[in-house]
């Protein structure tokens, strides 16, 4: 083969990122349900087979609503939507009002030890029986998140970690990191990290479409 052809073959490898170009996205994506957000995310949606970190400074500002449309769509498939140790009770009448198929919801609570919580998240991601795994974690180190990322790759599910704002400053191996900012005027999603892709890194969203 000519040297040019060899170089081309090497550069076409997905593992190589070339500055200034959209690198191809490995794995499928799940549409978020928000057109503006889809446009800014690589692959046009939430990354499947990887972790998404959503950092919300306070409760009640819409972190869960951000993932609701995708969850509603995933709930029509045959696999579980696992909620691991949620901070409050996921209210069934509200879930069903957002289009979630309740029979696919799996709630894991009453976990006392943090090692058990991490184990449950890892097992849910790894098993391949969950299309989405939602987890709320406060203090967790990078190594644990890396394990969860690997588990998500093995099980090809969508993992969502909800973190407090202190996590914003910590590095994380999650494939996608978002931070929510909200005030009386509006609501914006800050994209802290994404795999490839270009586009706005701050996506304002209409709060009306979230409720």
């Amino acid at each position, binding site marked *: 083969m000519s040297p040019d052809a060899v170089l081309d073959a090497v550069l076409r490898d997905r593992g190589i990122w070339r500055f200034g170009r959209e690198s191809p996205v490995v794995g499928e994506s799940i549409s978020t349900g928000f057109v503006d957000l889809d446009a800014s995310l690589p692959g046009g949606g939430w990354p499947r087979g990887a972790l998404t970190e959503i950092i919300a400074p306070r409760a*009640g500002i819409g*972190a*869960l*609503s951000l993932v609701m449309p995708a969850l509603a769509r995933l709930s029509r498939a*045959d696999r579980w939507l696992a909620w691991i140790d949620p901070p409050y009770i996921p209210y069934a009448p509200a879930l*069903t009002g957002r289009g979630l198929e309740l029979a696919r919801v*799996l709630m894991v609570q009453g976990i006392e030890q943090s090692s*058990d919580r991490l184990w*449950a998240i890892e097992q849910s991601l790894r098993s391949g029986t969950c299309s989405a795994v939602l987890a709320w974690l406060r203090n967790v180190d990078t190594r644990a998140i890396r394990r969860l990322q690997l588990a998500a790759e093995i099980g090809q599910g969508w993992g969502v970690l909800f973190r407090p704002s202190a996590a914003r400053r910590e590095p994380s191996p999650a494939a996608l990191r978002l931070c929510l900012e909200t005030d009386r005027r509006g609501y914006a999603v800050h994209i802290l990290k994404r795999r490839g892709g270009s586009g706005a890194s701050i996506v304002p969203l209409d*709060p009306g479409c979230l409720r």
Partner: protein
Amino acid sequence: MNDRSLLWLYLGLPCLPLEALGLVDRQHACVIDTEGRAPRVLMGNCAAHALGAAPGMKLNAVYALGDIEMYARRPSAEEHALRSLAAWCGQFTSMVSLAPPDGLLLEVGKSLALFGGVTALLEQVRPGLLALGYHPRLALAPTPLGATFLARADQELVITDKRALRARLAPLPLAVLPVGAAVKEALAGLGLRDLGDCLRLPRAGLARRFGQEFVGILDRALGRQPDPRSAFQPPTRFERRLELAHEIEDAQALLFASRRLLLELSGFLRARAAGARAIDWTLFHHGRRESYLNLRLLTPSRDPEHLTHLLRARLERLELSAPVCALRLVVAGVAPLTGSTLPLLPGSKQETQESSMAFIERLRARLGTDAVCGLSVVAEHRPECAWRRCAPGEPSPALRFHHRPLWLLKAPRRLELRTGRPYLGGDLELLDRGERIEGGWWEGHDIARDYFVARRADGGCFWIFCELQGTDPWFLHGIFE
């Protein structure tokens, strides 16, 4: 029944006294026979033999050899083990017969077609027995006694033709005969050395000397007379107790000891075409009350790997209060379970369904049964009663509700008031006119509340209510996330 089709598999367990106590792989162990005036060695395991212990030695001689452990023979444990093994053998044939003290007879002629021949059958039987910790001597012959004699003489042969039986039995020594020592001595005194010599003698003379019974044995061995055997009736309930040679303190070591019990259980269940729904373990401690471990399965299973996995998850969380000296496994709840049919396409619905339930079982084994549940709605006005926990996967009624928050608090939280308005980290502004919810007087827990959606300056939205009666005005009940 056509005589020709009968084929008997004799399963001899010459080391049963050792195996019943789990001593085969232990360091230097011997079983002693405490009958008679002085205890003597009955048999020792390989390590003990290597040190020089031999059957018939006196105890003092054994002590002089070195660090060899001695265990009293337990005939009850041997019988229990034999009966459990008979139940396990039920997966190969419906006709299992006990041949005490240390053998089993299986009539496999009719099962051969199912297993695909003698070799295929033996390829399942022998490794299965080895996995259970037994070292069998196997032999197949058209008559039960024929197979027994061959195995006792260490001739692990497969003889399918009755006509060849005589030639094969002839060279066997007299020791294989199920007769007393006196008779054997008398036979030796006549100059007879093997079965062939016995068979050449005239029948009438043998009968006169040693009794009709003796001639009957030879006849039945050769198939000249029928030899009906009583079928072993397996118990309806699987209950197996395992005495541990050493006390176990480590939960992981318990798993290893339990593995054999699970393999036996698997064979027992396969014989009944059933799966276990509930497995109850009892751990015995010296001088203390027993501990219990209960496994509940969502779908019946007899797969030893799956059951081992569930047990491991449970044992990892178990703190042993005291060393365990014995284990008991009881399976009371079984349910029919035919062999699994492979789905036509990989990843099809059937496959994901099976592993879905297995995944939940794994979670429950470690976190507890109540930790994993599904959610369902209830036709109720009172918000805290409009939802409930249910079994995972249970379908929920199709109900419509007004706009509701995604999070509900476990219990309503009282809000403080500042300047007359409800306050939660910031002033709350009411966004709607309110929804009055009343009801529940029929259950004694009645409520009368006005619910509002409230927003805080930083954008948080909450579901708060005001009680119509009562002193505290405002409560937080949900969060619109």
